[in-house]
């Protein structure tokens, strides 16, 4: 398949290819002589203008190019005169199927500008602006994706398909975009909309590849050859999606595991803190035990000391005084009695202290 085989399709209007339906009625009425169309403005200004004839008028009128003013005027008429972009797409097909290709570059440049002006209204398309650094294949795939929603909408679908076809023609001609990429991507996009199985769709794509009605069988054959690849690609994509899903699942699992890890780490921290607190408590208790041992030893020493102090100090002194008082001549019984009383009081005081401190 070459880019010369590409042809336009219009839907729901009949395709802009020469009709092969002949009239069965009588003699044809004579048509008035048609004025030649020499500018794009005129092409879009006349209802039902034929792209092939327009190009022929240009050739005969020795017109080689469209000036800027004409292009701008035509772009201004496009929304009204070609709301579904079918005429522009037909113009592109006519330009690429022309014998000498004289108007191919000029026409496709206009078509590309017109398509861009239409496509850029789509936010999804607008977002992919600036992707020129990518390959033509990638950019076309990306372009197809921008039209996925419009293709699913029966009302918007003709315009979307024509825009894709017009863009495809420009990219095949100007950027050497492989035609199989065009077929696969368009077939895939249409299949996703469950439309490819219908003959009407096949017919439209057949027109696109320039095979006319008879090309539908060839397209079907080519698609049958390509569909396994498409299928493989879809499976690969599905597999990739599965992988992505698995990855997401793994991510989720990882998140869960991370959370569990965090919980465990927190638990570990809490446990370590509890352990530290328990250790501190043990240390405190040990210190308290040591202190209690010290206190007990000290208290015992104090008690012994106090008793010893009372016995060794006060009582020994009192008894020595009593002994002295009894040993002198005459014995001092009054002194001895007094010191015995004091000793008794001292003993009672010490006993009282022992009782109260026990």
């Amino acid at each position, binding site marked *: 398949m070459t880019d010369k085989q590409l042809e336009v399709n219009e839907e729901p209007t009949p395709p802009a290819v020469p009709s092969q339906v002949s009239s069965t009625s009588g003699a044809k009425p004579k048509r008035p002589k048609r004025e030649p169309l020499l500018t794009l403005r005129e092409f879009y200004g006349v209802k039902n203008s034929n792209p092939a004839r327009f190009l022929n008028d240009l050739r005969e009128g020795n017109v080689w190019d469209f000036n800027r003013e004409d292009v701008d005027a035509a772009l201004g008429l496009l929304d009204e005169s070609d709301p579904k972009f079918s005429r522009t797409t037909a113009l592109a097909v006519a330009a690429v199927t022309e014998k000498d290709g004289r108007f191919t570059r000029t026409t496709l440049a206009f078509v590309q500008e017109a398509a861009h002006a239409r496509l850029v209204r789509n936010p999804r398309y607008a977002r992919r602006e600036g992707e020129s650094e990518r390959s033509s294949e990638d950019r076309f795939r990306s372009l197809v994706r921008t039209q996925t929603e419009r293709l699913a909408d029966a009302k918007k679908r003709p315009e979307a398909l024509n825009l894709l076809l017009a863009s495809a023609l420009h990219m095949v001609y100007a950027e050497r975009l492989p035609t199989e990429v065009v077929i696969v991507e368009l077939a895939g996009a249409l299949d996703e909309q469950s439309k490819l199985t219908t003959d009407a769709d096949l017919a439209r794509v057949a027109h696109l590849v320039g095979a006319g009605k008879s090309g539908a069988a060839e397209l079907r054959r080519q698609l049958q050859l390509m569909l396994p690849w498409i299928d493989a690609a879809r499976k690969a994509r599905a597999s990739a999606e599965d992988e992505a899903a698995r990855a997401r699942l793994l991510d989720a699992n990882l998140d869960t595991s991370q959370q569990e890890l965090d919980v465990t780490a927190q638990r570990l921290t809490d446990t370590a803190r509890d352990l530290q607190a328990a250790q501190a408590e043990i240390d405190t208790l040990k210190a308290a035990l040591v202190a209690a041992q010290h206190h007990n030893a000290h208290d015992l*020493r104090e008690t012994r000391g106090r008793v010893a*102090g009372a016995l060794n100090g006060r009582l020994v002194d009192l008894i020595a*005084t009593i002994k002295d008082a009894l040993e*002198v001549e005459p014995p001092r019984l009054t002194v001895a009695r007094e010191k015995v009383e004091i000793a008794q009081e001292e003993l009672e005081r010490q006993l009282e202290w022992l009782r109260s401190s026990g």
Partner: protein
Amino acid sequence: MAEIVGLDFGTTNSLVSVVSGGRVLALTAEDDLPHPSVVWYHGTEVVVGRQAKGQLAEPALGIVGDVVGSPKRYLGRGELLVVGGVSRHPSDPVAAILGYLKGQARGQGHDFESAVVTIPVAMDGRGRRDLRDAAAKAGIGILQFVHEPLAALYGYLRTQENAELLIQELQDQLILVFDWGGGTLDLTLCQLSGRTVTQVVNLGNTNVGGDQFDLRLRNFVVQRHLDEHGIRSHVDVEPNADRVLVARCESAKIELSRRATTTVFVPNYLRTDGPARTLEVNLSREDLETVTTDVVEDGIRTIHALLELVGRNPESVGLCLAAGGMVQMPRIQERLIEIFGARRLPRIDHGDRIISAGAAWIAHDRARLTLAKPVELLNADDSYVTIVPAGTNLPIENESYEQELAMYCVDPRDGYAKFHFARPEWPARLQAGDRRMPYANLAVAVDPGAKPLYERLNVYVSIDHDLVAEVRTRSSLFEDEHRSEIFDLEFGMRIP
């Protein structure tokens, strides 16, 4: 592990205390009493404590033969002591006592190398330096000195069960603390602001210590014995009889704190025949009070004098904390109750240990002394400039505080620049019109021909770890320099 202890090196008794497990443990002697501050140089042996005290034949504290009673009183005098015919530095017997205390503590499981040591309010810089040297000889570093009554107050507030309530009640009130011990009566008047105790004024009296009571009682007993036997001439005393009499007079003093009368009995006292040989003297509490009344009243006058120093009377005192062994004497207790009333005079169970306990708490809390009042210098316009602000953290062991100030001589015509160093009478009253208490006056020679405000005068202030401030002044042209030592700084301390 080495601990930091509280050490009360007292005139008559000394005690180490340590805080362990939230309790103060007093590391007393075997008889559960503080260790007597007595050293006996017995040949090559140095005996300390109770055994050394037993050798004292005189109640008066001092050197008797080869026994040194209360070596604390010799610190800072700059004189060598002659003990048993041997010249010794005053720090030697002190080091012997401190070393003994350290050994006793180690024997009770408390090894220490550093201590918070209490000192009388009147101990000057030389005394503190001698004490630090003595401690170093004994292997003890003095972390911080603290006035004895301030330590007593800290220990009291630190150990009260209702401490918080008490602190609230005493806010901005005056607290009188005194330590009436064997050698001195030390007083401090404090204010409690927030949780900080601040000394307002300190005063000491070395003439009313417990040793004076013992001496007077001993002399009274001897005189009464001589009178009863009509002896007018000198009679020798039997060997060792004086030692026995000293011990029995001390017992009689204790007995008279619990009963109205007692008898001092010493057989074979006088070297004579007949009944006078045996000393038997009946003593009443009135006798004791009579012979000691002037000492008691001297002490009471000291309390009034302290209050008068800052224009206050006893009614303005919110709490009177009486520490020291002498406050157990009934006559002193009666007099204090008369002055302050029983409500403001709490009973302290261990009055002889509270100073050591307070020092132990200070050591335990690592509480630091701060300067209670700013050190100020009088300006030519009669205003005071602060050189060292109140609240300054005072140096602990091996630290010092330094401050320098540059001024200019306003009127050099008489050839002298005069410096008056002072502090406010009350800690928080710093206005120019508030009363000041002087620290020191210095004068340096200046060039009388110089223009006013031409000759620079440098003022240097330093405070060392003995809590002694030195003020030094120097004139820049005449290069004349003078200095003075200030040891009577007032301190503050925060209760945790």
